[in-house]
């Protein structure tokens, strides 16, 4: 049934205005910068797609993108299974369930820059518990100088900060499974693995899709924590896309290239998220019967 009532548009108007001011207009200024050049004095010249061509040919950007993809890949590969594992082992009810929930939420409540600072101190060889311990065990650990040490620290920090999110979402998914499913599985003599594979995983699929999307988008934009911890170093070892972008835009004040860069960055995130979402919901439909 279709009704030709256009009044509904007025109802969404406030939202449209809000979105325009908060997202579209700022984004358009970025678009504006990306197609112009300036030599100071607030004088701008039309540059066409030159900045985009520049950026696409820029090794620096490709390197940052590569690091970014590796980083997001690694933390997803760790946080998703680990989060599921934690959720599976959390108590289902009672005092300890609440206790675990509070404990798990703590890292999520800490501001990004504080997380960076915590790990910066934690990892220091002279006064940090982690750094000092590793050092006294004879492990050559120095995140400000070693490539692997820097990466390991940044990844551990992210896992520490965000695994809780995956775990909490997975836990919510698990809690929604009626007891009868587990009882039926026992009657059917299903193994622990079969219970996970055929009951728990399918029931968690929705929340896991959300968890993966959130973690992907967030990790792909990561800025504050590595910036505070390593400042992108040593060298460019942990210079992820955002860090590089800020260096370019504010450090070197190359507004044009930075704008072009950020637009492409935005597109990459959107396309990957969209494709992932479509794939997951299509799987869902297929399972909903033919």
């Amino acid at each position, binding site marked *: 049934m279709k009704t030709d009532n256009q009044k509904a548009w007025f109802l969404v108007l406030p939202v449209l205005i809000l979105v325009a001011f908060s997202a579209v207009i700022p984004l358009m200024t970025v678009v504006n910068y990306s197609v112009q050049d300036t030599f100071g004095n607030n004088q701008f010249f039309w540059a066409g797609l030159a900045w985009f061509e520049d950026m696409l040919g820029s090794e620096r950007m490709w390197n940052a993108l590569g690091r970014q993809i590796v980083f997001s890949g690694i933390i997803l590969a760790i946080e998703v299974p680990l989060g599921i594992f934690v959720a599976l082992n959390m108590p289902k009810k009672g005092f300890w369930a609440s206790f675990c929930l509070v404990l798990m939420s703590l890292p999520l409540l800490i501001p990004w820059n504080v997380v960076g600072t915590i790990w910066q101190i934690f990892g220091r060889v002279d006064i940090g518990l982690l750094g000092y311990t590793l050092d006294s065990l004879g492990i050559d650990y120095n995140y400000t100088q070693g490539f692997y040490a820097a990466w390991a620290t940044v990844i551990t920090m992210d896992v520490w900060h965000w695994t809780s999110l995956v775990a909490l979402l997975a836990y919510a998914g698990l809690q929604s499974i009626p007891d009868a499913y587990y009882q039926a599985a026992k*009657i059917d*003599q299903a193994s622990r693995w079969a219970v996970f594979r055929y009951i728990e995983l399918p*029931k968690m699929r929705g929340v896991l899709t959300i968890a993966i999307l959130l973690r992907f988008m967030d990790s792909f934009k990561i800025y504050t924590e590595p910036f505070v911890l390593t400042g992108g170093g040593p060298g460019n070892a942990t210079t992820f896309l955002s860090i590089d972008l800020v260096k370019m835009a504010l450090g070197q004040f190359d507004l044009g290239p930075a704008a072009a860069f950020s637009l492409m960055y935005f597109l990459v995130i959107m396309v990957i998220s969209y494709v992932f979402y479509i794939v997951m919901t299509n799987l869902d439909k297929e*399972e909903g019967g033919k």
Partner: protein
Amino acid sequence: MAKITLDSLAHSYLNDPQSPEDFALQELNHDWVDGEAYALLGPSGCGKSTLLNIISGLLIPSHGRVLFDGKDVTHLPTADRNIAQVFQFPVVYDTMTVRENLAFPLRNRKLPQSEIADRVIRVARMIDMEGVLDRRASGLTADAKQKISLGRGMVRDDVNALLFDEPLTVIDPHMKWELRTQLKKLHHDFGHTMIYVTHDQTEALTFADKVVVMYDGRVVQIGTPDELFERPAHTFVGYFIGSPGMNLFDAQIDGTKARIAGTQFDLGTGYALKGGKTKIGVRPEFIRLGHHGLPARVTRVEDVGRHKIVRLDLGGQEMSAIVGEGAAVPDGGTHVQFVEGGVNVYEDDWRVSPERGDAPVAAKTEAA
């Protein structure tokens, strides 16, 4: 297949039960005879599921033992008991097809592929789902999903027992009848010990050879449908079974005489009473209206098709009588008589046997 023995079995969900009220299941001793089909009948919350889950091992009883063919299985996990159980609400494995769902219990038991295929086809025919075997289970209706759940219970033919926990609640009435027939056929063909839980008396009485009636955590009577009808062992059974249920009158009993609402009549036999609160129970089917007996007043007549239900007032106590469709019902004053053998005496809600033994019921109802 096995005989299942419940030995001083009781269960409380509390950690430290004090009084009988703390028990979801009161102490119970019972043998479920190998190969018999039982119905377990009782109102919601009386402990039916608790009892079933203890038998299947989903629940470990707080007191007493469960034995299969004399072997203590009280603490044996469900998987090692080889029991099939179907629950009230459908459980299907969403990512599997109907075929895979039905095959799942057999796969887990590592049966050969060809045998699995045979049995799945057989059971699919029983639940009328041959046509949708290759569809995903998650897209089906609640009805169909419950049929799959039933099928997964019926597909194993070497089980010690088949337990059904109100399995047809979500099924539509026509299919209900069809599936119940299939279950009876399954029982006939394979002779499994079956326990069928329901709160619907018609379902219980039509399904089983033996009906176990539960009330408030207690098994109050185990008997054939006829026994439950004619000799309810507890006032609850009288009231719960039958439509309308048994009439219960507060009565004083003195030797072979009983007095209801000031009118005395002869019971024909004495009862060994211990001085508790006595009641007389008479089913509406065993009451005759006429010119003799206890004076009563007709308050209402309901025509329910095949017969009429007459509501009466007997000296301030309500009662119902069932009369034939064509019978004339006086309005206002009348008299009621009880059919011989249709009178049961209760003391503190439990039936007391007559000293002379039970007389057979003379005739059920004029209408029958």
